[in-house]
């Protein structure tokens, strides 16, 4: 019986470090990992999750603030990568934190608080993205943040016209290529690329098997590589 290529590594990894452990990144001896662009955002340690939740449920406001502070950066990045809009991402993170507060009594300590919070952020981001795409303002390209982006791009253009134009052009082409990917591949690609989120975390957020995450990330990269090659960006 064939199993996905990533199933073996996860089984090995879980046997050695437990099911909720964070994936190994930047392994010594891996000749590529050290230069792969990945975000490194400080997040809470897994062991303290249950303690924090207990403190919050006991009415400790400081503990709740600490949880939010630890996950804010990661949540904002995830929301921004889905929505590509600063004010929408802020709105989603704020709403998610309020929901987290309301839903904390339902949190089971055997789960990872990080992926539990990120799943809330993920769902809210997708909902807002869907609502925004339906709005007539978005269809006309007149939503507020776009104006801000245009202003920022114009100011950059004034400083270094050639480089800024080229960078903006490349960015737009890459975003178009990402948008052309099938939805499941795009979702895996968006959640991938954080130092704090291994394939197992992405699998929990998307609620699919780890092998599926592995194959989706690879397919997304391969399709993007082909597309970007055709457009002369690689």
């Amino acid at each position, binding site marked *: 019986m064939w199993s996905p290529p990533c199933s073996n590594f996860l089984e*090995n990894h879980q046997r050695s470090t437990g099911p909720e452990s964070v994936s190994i990144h930047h392994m010594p001896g891996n000749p590529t990992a050290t230069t*792969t662009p990945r975000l490194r955002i400080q997040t809470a340690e897994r062991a303290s999750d249950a303690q924090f939740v207990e403190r919050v449920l006991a009415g400790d406001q400081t503990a709740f603030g600490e949880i939010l502070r630890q996950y804010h950066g990661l949540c904002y*990045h995830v929301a921004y990568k889905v929505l590509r809009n600063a004010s929408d991402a802020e709105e989603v993170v704020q709403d998610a*934190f309020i929901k987290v507060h309301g839903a904390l009594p339902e949190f089971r300590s055997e789960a990872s608080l990080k992926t539990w919070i990120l799943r809330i952020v993920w769902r809210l981001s997708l909902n807002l993205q869907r609502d925004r795409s339906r709005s007539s303002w978005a269809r006309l390209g007149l939503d507020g943040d776009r104006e801000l982006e245009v202003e920022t791009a114009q100011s950059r253009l004034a400083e270094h016209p050639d480089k800024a134009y080229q960078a903006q052009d490349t960015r737009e082409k*890459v*975003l178009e290529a990402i948008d052309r990917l099938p939805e499941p591949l795009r979702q895996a690609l968006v959640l991938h690329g954080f130092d704090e989120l291994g394939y197992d975390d992405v699998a929990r957020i998307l609620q699919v098997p780890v092998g599926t995450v592995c194959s989706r990330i690879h397919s997304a990269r*391969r399709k*993007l590589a082909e597309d970007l090659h055709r457009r002369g960006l690689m």
Partner: protein
Amino acid sequence: MSCFDRVRDLLRFKILRRHLAAEEHISAFIDGELAEDEREQVAAQFALDPSVQQRVRDLRAVDALVHQALEPPSVPKADACIQGALAADESPLPSTQQKPRVPTAVIASVGLIVTAGVAFVGLRRRGLV
């Protein structure tokens, strides 16, 4: 389809499947997601096979472009967001105990009795009962 064709198709399928598995291993290798034995296997391929080196370079180039395209220009300070959430936190936490709910059967029974009563009174006034 002859027996020979079937065997040939099966072999092709197996070769394709192995090829795909190896391809996905390269992605997992880049992300540092492989177990040690698998990582060593891909690292050996990487060292010996220029086509593997090229594929790794391509996939890493894609990562760099995606990273640049999706990276937010700046991350806002957490304080305002946290203050907002903490303000909502002033409301008491929802209790894990559910409020006692009136069963649907009781509501339906009461509705039935009231309807029957009204009907009975109406019929009695008309002298039908």
